[in-house]
């Protein structure tokens, strides 16, 4: 029995530490200048060890190996994407990968995945730089994008098929696919004490969700610009 307990303990320790050691190892070995389409094995000496325990054997050592099974989803549906979310999240969190071009391609302003024929969309060089910051925010800030990140909602969840460019905003209809219908949303957000202080049913009529809800920066309650004494909170706010 005692032995058995030991085995369990060892198992727990393994579960707890294996990924961490793998990543810290990867971080240590992360090369300073990663070249396009580089191999995963630059950081992960043992690729299989970096994968979930029951993951089937991988042949190949770059992103192409993954996408043969994990096909990139270009439908732009407003729904969670577990695989892509996880892949981005772990790499950003560990700080091991700041270079998108390890897995992605960027030729003639077209953004794609190496080894994959189709393109994810068009993107300017400046916007490509912004995406890096946005992914950092998405993976661990207090902003609305991080709230979506926790639910495995990636860029396309809000921005559909086409990559957004500077100044684009998400239309209400897109938000309402998950958060609607509007009447239900209004009902959900109706304060019990003062039903007419409902931010989704205000005297300003139908306004853009993005007036208050900012995905990649701090959200603010627009009402408070005049009604300074209202006690209102917003997800992704300060």
């Amino acid at each position, binding site marked *: 029995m005692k032995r058995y307990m030991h085995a369990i303990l060892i198992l727990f320790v393994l579960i707890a530490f294996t990924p961490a050691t793998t990543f810290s190892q990867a971080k240590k070995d992360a090369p300073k200048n990663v070249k396009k389409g580089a191999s995963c094995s630059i950081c992960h000496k043992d690729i299989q060890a970096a994968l979930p325990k029951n993951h089937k054997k991988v042949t190949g050592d770059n992103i192409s190996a993954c996408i043969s099974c994990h096909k990139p989803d270009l439908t732009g549906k407003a729904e969670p994407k577990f695989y892509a979310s996880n892949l981005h999240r772990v790499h950003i969190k560990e700080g091991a990968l700041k270079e998108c071009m390890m897995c992605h391609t960027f030729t003639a302003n077209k953004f794609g995945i190496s080894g994959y024929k189709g393109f994810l969309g068009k993107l300017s060089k400046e916007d490509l730089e912004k995406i890096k910051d946005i992914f950092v925010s998405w993976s661990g800030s207090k902003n609305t994008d991080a709230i979506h990140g926790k639910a495995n909602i990636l860029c396309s969840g809000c921005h559909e098929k086409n990559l957004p*460019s*500077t*100044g*684009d*905003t998400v239309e209400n209809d897109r938000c309402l696919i998950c958060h609607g219908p509007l009447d239900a949303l209004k009902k959900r957000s109706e304060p019990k*004490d*003062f039903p*007419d202080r409902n931010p989704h049913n205000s*005297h*300003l*009529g139908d*306004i*853009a969700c*993005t*007036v208050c809800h900012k995905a990649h920066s701090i959200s603010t309650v*627009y009402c408070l*610009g*005049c*009604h*300074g*004494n209202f006690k209102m909170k917003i997800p992704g706010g300060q």
Partner: protein
Amino acid sequence: MYLETIKIKTNPEKLNDIKDVLGEASRQILEDSSLLKFEFYRNFTVSFDFMVNLYWIDLKDPQRGSDLAYQVIEGLKHIGIVNYAVWIREMDSESWKHRETDSAKILNKTYSMDEEVFMKTKESDETKTKITRRGFLKAGMGAGVLAATGIALDLTKKDAEAAQRKLPKKWDETIDVVIVGSGFAGLAAAAEAGKRGAKAVILEKMPTYGGNSIINGGVYAAWDSKLHLRKKLNLGDDSPQQHFEDTLKGGDYYNIPALVKNLTEGAADALNWMIEEGGCKLREALTRAGGHSAYRTHTVVEGVGRGFTEPLRKIAEKYGAQIRLNNELTWIWRKDTDGPILGVEVKTPKGKKNIKIKKALILASGGFSRDIKMRQAFNPSIVPEYNSTNHPGATGECIRYAQAVGADTLHLAFIQLYPFAEPETGILDNPAVYPFNGVGYGLIYVDKNGKRFVNELERRDVCSMAQIKLGQKPTYSIFNEEMVTKMGGSMDEIQKGMAKGRFIKGETIEELAEKLKIPKQNLVETVNKHNQYLKDGKDLEFNKPITKAMIPLEKGPFYAVAQWPAVHHTMGGLRINEKTQVIDIWGKVIPKFYAAGEVTGGVHGSNRLGSNAIPDCVVHGRIAGINAAQEKG
């Protein structure tokens, strides 16, 4: 240090040309660090003779003179002026070195230093970059003077980016009629312009449409409408003329009568237009508001300005007008003092954009009640501590942009306080409209001691000052249930207001006094006295004109609402004519430039009467839209 002097003899035909040459040359002050000062004089007696003084810290070749002087001379030759002379001297020596002259005659002229048209120094530029908005506006005025003399539009205004600003080389877009602001005036203008086939685009800097209009109290003064409520409710007589006279009197006759006439004569038609084309709905009530001598104030069903902005938006969009949110005006393009508005520079979410304007620019950008520095610059008594009923976007930058291209302003010191705002935040919420709408039906104002302090039918400025002089915040309106629907209110609103603690209810006056922490005896005494005044038809304390529609406070339940003044409306603004064309500081129309609504001045004089704002905006917005559409492309 060197002083280089260019003396120029010209004739009246060349006057504008020469000013252009010198104006262009004066920009050098910003680029050449050795140029200390650029002075520009006109002859006192022969006004088309000029003298230019250039003060140099150092000159490469004092014998030859400066490049700038050569540039000026080349410019002069180019426009056909040959009578000029250039002198140069070291500043501490009195010996002038005559360098070049094509006309010896001019040297004998005496130049008066009194008529200084333009002077610019490095020092003043540096201080200007640090100055406050007040100084900034002064600088703006200075530019206007220059504009009028034809030198250039933007010479002294380094801090306003003007001196460095050159017309855009290419335009990103061309639009027939550009309207700035999506409130009553902007929407009405867009609707009328669109109806006449012009492509109208509204630029709105805020992320939501409607500005102050959508949160406005929703009351509209008109002598009549297609509903004929006054006749229906048997509330006496009225006429556009009577409305005209009340408005002038309420504004202490500072108003420009032609503009008031537009308002009072166009109000009923504009109201019918919103009812017929926009589906606007009015409550079955009509009130007599402070300063008005008749029951002419209509209330929209929604009880808030949205009840008017939505119909207006509907009409505007029906005629193809487009509202662009998050689009902020950052400059108005105009080339010269006689020329038209050429376009605008706009900050959009996608970056800066220059829009060429085909027909006209209409400024409908509202007032500056939330521009603390600006309001205090013109009226120091409006201290920052005042709350405001306005939305955060009510700032005055569009007035400054208009000034920078020569527009005249008037009445900027006249700033209205809304006497009955919510005391804590200054907002004009639904309960805050009751004190305004109730007075024609016998609602009274009392202070914390339970005493009346003003004739409730007085104008807003009088009611506000009476409260401020009390020195005790807040004051209260007292009314009873019987008045509620008559004044255009509803019991539903009363219930909601009570839930928020805004309306206080008492079955008796004593109970109400107790809840308000007002001395019971005082309030009872005040109410009784006032009831007696109504019966006698005479207010012995404040001489309020008593009408038959006024109800004595005898039957409960009674209600109270707390109130305190907050900055509400800026009467002053751009000078326009009766066609809503913007006028420059020399009294000339600025071609292709219109303005309507609170951004303009002169309609309301020193004090706007309540419920005159919406008819002002809608009527003048329509006029602007109609005229703009008729401009040639």
